[in-house]
């Protein structure tokens, strides 16, 4: 029991005076089936217990990673923009700005496997096979120079991998190192002489530097409503006609897309280009977005987004336009494609 902080043991069972006393079981709920437990109980422990069957090697992992992960994490797991870097940072933990990656910081390989299998890719979690997860993890290890390029990860090789920072953690010691020290309540003459400013604030104004609260307040509150509602006497840009109910369905489908694509007022480019006015737009032409070569070339060759082309693209993006960088497996249901197209129409003029 020494691994639990002492204060915790002292408080355990001592509180909850207002809680109802448990007399006996109430017989509520029902027994979970084995299949249900198997579906949700995915956790893998540091000793490798509860790992699924399967395997994946580094070279397969490189391909699967390129298809599913590289758009945010980079081809070499180096991380794009603010997205997490998965490789590098060796021996930086004591530096001023440590780089914490799977290789430099994560203590257990099980954590990487568990997280990739549950929660990645971002926006399409649990879409990967166990073999793919093994392969991706093998590739991440390779990117960190922790395995060679002929390595295959499976249940059997899992514990062969040594994580560099496995011994880099210790259990919270604040009860010993801080609590006995932080007890002095000085009331007078606590510092010699008057204080001086040693550091001034780095971001002085509104950190977003957008409209100030005053500006927002003086704007008539109804402006936003009017701006988003289609208006009859707003003659200039003609809105694309769309079925509002179907567009609402499409908005739900669009949740799969919105990790990378923004749409609506003020939508900016993210991992993917803004999709405002995508309707009848030439492919690869949103200002400021860095397209893959195949996408730019397709636009130059006259690819325009409409019902036919978008339906084809969204059904199987990688097959439709080989080498483009959208890492999305595709929408399997025609109804979903139809709905999401209607939603995109509703944001086009």
């Amino acid at each position: 029991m020494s691994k639990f902080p002492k204060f915790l043991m002292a408080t355990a069972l001592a509180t909850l005076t207002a809680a109802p006393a448990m007399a006996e079981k109430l017989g509520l709920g029902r027994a979970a089936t084995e299949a249900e437990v198997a579906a949700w109980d995915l956790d893998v422990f540091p000793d490798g217990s509860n790992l699924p069957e399967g395997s994946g090697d580094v070279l397969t992992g490189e391909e699967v990673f390129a298809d599913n992960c590289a758009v945010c994490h980079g081809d070499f797991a180096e991380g794009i923009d603010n997205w997490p870097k998965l490789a590098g940072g060796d021996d930086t933990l004591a530096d001023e700005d440590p780089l914490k990656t799977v290789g430099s910081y994560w203590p257990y390989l099980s954590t990487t496997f568990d997280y990739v299998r549950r929660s990645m890719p971002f926006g399409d979690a649990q879409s990967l096979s166990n073999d793919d997860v093994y392969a991706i993890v093998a590739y991440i290890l390779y990117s960190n120079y922790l395995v060679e390029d002929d390595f295959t990860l499976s249940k059997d090789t899992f514990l062969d991998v040594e994580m560099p920072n496995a011994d880099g953690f210790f259990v919270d010691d604040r009860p010993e190192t801080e609590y006995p020290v932080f007890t002095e309540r000085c009331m007078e003459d606590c510092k010699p002489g008057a204080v001086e400013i040693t550091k001034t604030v780095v971001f002085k104004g509104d950190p977003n530097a957008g409209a100030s609260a005053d500006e927002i307040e003086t704007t008539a509150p109804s402006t936003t409503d009017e701006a988003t509602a289609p208006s009859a006497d707003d003659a200039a840009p003609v809105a694309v006609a769309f079925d509002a109910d179907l567009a609402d369905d499409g908005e739900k489908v669009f949740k799969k897309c919105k990790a990378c694509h923004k749409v609506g007022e003020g939508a900016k480019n993210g991992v993917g280009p803004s999709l405002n006015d995508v309707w009848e737009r030439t492919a690869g032409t949103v200002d400021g977005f860095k397209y893959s070569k195949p996408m730019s070339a397709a636009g130059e060759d006259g690819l325009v987004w409409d019902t036919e082309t978008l339906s084809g693209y969204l059904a199987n993006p990688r097959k439709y336009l080989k080498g483009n960088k959208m890492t999305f497996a595709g929408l399997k249901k025609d109804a979903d494609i139809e709905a999401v197209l209607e939603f995109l129409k509703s944001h086009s003029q």
Partner: protein
Amino acid sequence: MSDSSTKSGASRRAFLKGAAATGAAFGATGAARAEGDPLITEVQYWAAGLGDGVDATPYGMPIEFEDHVIRRNVEWLTADTISSINFTPIHALDGTITPQGCAFERHHSGAITLKKEDYRLMINGLVDTPLVFSYADLERFPRVTRTFFLECAANTGMEWAGAQLNGAQYTHGMIHNMEYTGVTLRTLLEEAGLDAAGDLAGKWVYVEGADASSNGRSIPMEKALDDCLVAFKANGEALRMEHGYPVRLVVPGWEGNMWVKWLRRIEVMDAPVESREETSKYTDTMADGTSRKWTWTMDAKSIITSPSPQMPITHGKGPLVITGLAWSGNGAITAVDVSLDGGVTWQEARLAEPGKPMALSRFYLDIDWDGSEMFLQSRAVDDTGYVQPTKTQLREVRGLNSIYHNNGIQTWHVNAEGEANNVEVS
């Protein structure tokens, strides 16, 4: 909003503008004092006409003049708003309860839409009978109602290296305090039966959410049986989707990341999972590069919410209310001290009411401001005798590489004009 109400709204605004302008002129000159304040001497439209009917807003929102009191994000802090954080406008609130609509949000894969009818909670692992509960099942267990703060471990994390962001909302706004209603985690664990777990000392529960991130965390059995709640109401009403509707876990006094939203599974185990959220994140790196783990408790901390950078003094010298919040994950706040001179001398502030364990306390210090510059600081004391440390004291122990658990004393520099800025002092 109908056309007619929009129209009347517009004319009302125009009228109000006129009235406000007159009021300002009146207040400024003082010469017109003999005639009196037109807001008093003239019949105002709100005193003559009629207001909105009872069904104008079936679920009410704050009046439009308060529309700046909102959660705010700092766009460049994270790659994307889906896996990100925003901040409670603590500078503009008073009392201790945080309204749900402006209580900060932290999502790892976005706020999901989960119906009560689709909600399932599983308990498995080392229990006598693995069980599945529906939402309706949860409502039939004996219920408790208790108030707790939730603070993100990363609250004030930006400020380790120096004074970074200019506002209590941004430096200390990853916190909220709500009255939760739900079932104790102990009740549910006992319903599944813990005989199978044997000796409970050294056992753990793993909790995870239904969203794509799952955000799993391992919690020692002692804590699970002590005071954790499986909550479905906050401040009397259903949880908001951004806070885990329909069901979230409440882990009093411990870092917010453990308060799993959309709670879907509780597993009894004999070892921690060592998930992403408890290894690669939410661990505290020391100066030598080693890292503390299992730093669950949020230590005593306080912040002056007004005056503060977003809440300058606009009334000049004279009576001034200094107010703020204090809390401790180790117990109840017993005192808050305030310094006007950057920590040379301190005086005890007035607590709005006696501190409650692991809940926010509100403090006030009423002073007669002489218009000179101030270095405002507050310092919390809890019932374990812990005194909130300075940033310097924390750095002496931990170095500069930590992100989480920064509970150091904050300084606001208030100048003669009443403007406040985030600074560090000697």
